[in-house]
């Protein structure tokens, strides 16, 4: 059954998400290949040799790691500079990382559902569910740390003692994000009930039914906004007094996506 769609992600966010995903993939794979000290190493020896073979030398791998890391940092810096008035607002942050009572209950029920220990329905969620909020919280604290420690190591900021601390904090922050990233990737790409969320990161939209079931509070707020918008339009028309034709939702009277080819229509 075809569903009406609700827009969830701006195209800039979609692009940023996949840029971020590719950057993480490259940075994690090269970063793991760069740590050779037995005190810090966790990748197997064959992996280190393979990565060294791919890049020709570990020095090249480090250059690549730094280049991707600097680009990644620069892109997010630009995003922060141009987007901070839109995104660093209390309402937005509340949506993204603020946990309310429903969220806490959701975390408990979600865990029990995964273990098959309950049949309770999931509490209603906002535009992001509690798991996504927890992951966002982790990312918002760890990513600046990753960037700052990376820059410290790259440019040898503040001297040797800082670089030594930056190194272990870099490892720690990346490890923390990876622990959440595994759930993020699993939930997005493998877990069946959240597949619409995965596709929304490509198309930018979700089905209304999915929004209704998984993000009820968000769905409700979207509906209230639409009602208010319709009421406003209707009252304007009444004030003007046009009676040519009744108002229609502009999206429903838009040209159909599949139209019969017209004569002389060369497609």
């Amino acid at each position, binding site marked *: *059954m075809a*569903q009406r769609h609700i827009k969830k992600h701006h195209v800039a966010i979609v692009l940023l998400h996949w840029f971020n995903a590719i950057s993480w993939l490259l940075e994690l794979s090269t970063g793991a290949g*760069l*740590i*050779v*000290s*037995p*005190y*810090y190493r966790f990748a197997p020896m064959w992996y280190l040799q393979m990565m060294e073979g791919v890049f020709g030398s*570990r*020095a090249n791998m*480090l*250059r690549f790691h730094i280049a991707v890391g600097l680009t990644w940092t620069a892109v997010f810096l630009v995003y922060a500079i141009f987007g901070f008035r839109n995104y660093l607002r209390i309402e937005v942050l509340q949506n993204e990382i603020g946990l309310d009572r429903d969220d806490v209950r959701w975390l408990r029920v979600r865990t029990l559902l*995964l*273990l*098959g220990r309950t049949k309770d329905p999931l509490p209603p969620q906002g535009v992001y569910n509690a798991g996504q909020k927890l992951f966002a919280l982790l990312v918002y604290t760890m990513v600046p740390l990753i960037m700052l420690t990376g820059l410290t*190591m*790259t*440019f*040898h900021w503040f*001297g*040797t*003692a800082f*670089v*030594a*601390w930056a*190194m*272990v*904090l870099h*490892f*720690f922050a990346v*490890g*923390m994000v*990876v*622990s*959440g990233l*595994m*759930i993020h990737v*699993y939930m997005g790409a*493998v*877990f*069946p*009930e959240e*597949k*619409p969320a995965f596709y929304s990161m490509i198309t930018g939209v979700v*089905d209304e*039914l*999915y929004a209704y079931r998984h993000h009820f509070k968000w769905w409700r707020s979207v509906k209230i906004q639409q009602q208010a918008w319709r009421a406003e339009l209707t009252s304007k028309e009444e004030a003007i007094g046009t009676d040519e034709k009744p108002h229609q939702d502009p999206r429903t009277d838009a040209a159909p996506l599949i139209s019969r080819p017209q004569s002389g229509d060369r497609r």
Partner: protein
Amino acid sequence: MPRYAMVIDQERCVGCQSCTVACKSEWEVPNGSARTKVRQTGTVGQFPKLSTAFYVSQCNHCDRPTCVPACPTGATYQDQNGVVRVNRDLCIGCGSCVAACPYGARYINAEIGKVDKCDFCASRLSRGLQPACVATCPAHAKIFGDLEDSSSDVFQFVYRGAAKRMETANIAIGPNVYYAGKPEHAELALASFAPLPPRTLAPGKVWSSLLNKFVFLAVGATFLGQAVAFFHQLSTGEKQFEE
């Protein structure tokens, strides 16, 4: 494959610091740092039986270097010929190796933000030249050569003579700079400049005692959680949600 080593004849050394200067000019070592330098033990004993010794300190290119495993990126490595070298393209200047060296042979070059130390003048060796300090030493107190070559001077000193390694009972990592001359000179130098136990920097200690456990616990827990969820998903099967 050669195995390079150096012998310092403490009887010939007069402490003129020519080697220090040659090294500094060869490698543009910044002020306050040195790849090699001559240190004096000070005078010991009772007049008129006084004695002193010169101790030339530099990288010992040890058989079991403690600096190599300490380097997180593998910038410090050991060549086939035994020379411990630093790949500056990989060095991030964290100072882990500086703390790990028992001989204090390494320093951070603040101008480039990377570690530096003696590499037996590897670029000169590849051109068939002797290290700068050896070529400069007016008393021929520094002897450089190949331990695999039985005709070399260092072979004679090390295997036929009484050249000693600067080792203690606790710290014996096979240094390849040997000290020849009167035995009391070597003993005096060892008493004054004994190798120190390799240190781990505070961040490294915090990592190995706390942070790495935290990371492995967090990653392990989430991995386990998602594995449980995945098997639950497999056992219950997927139901088409949207239809």
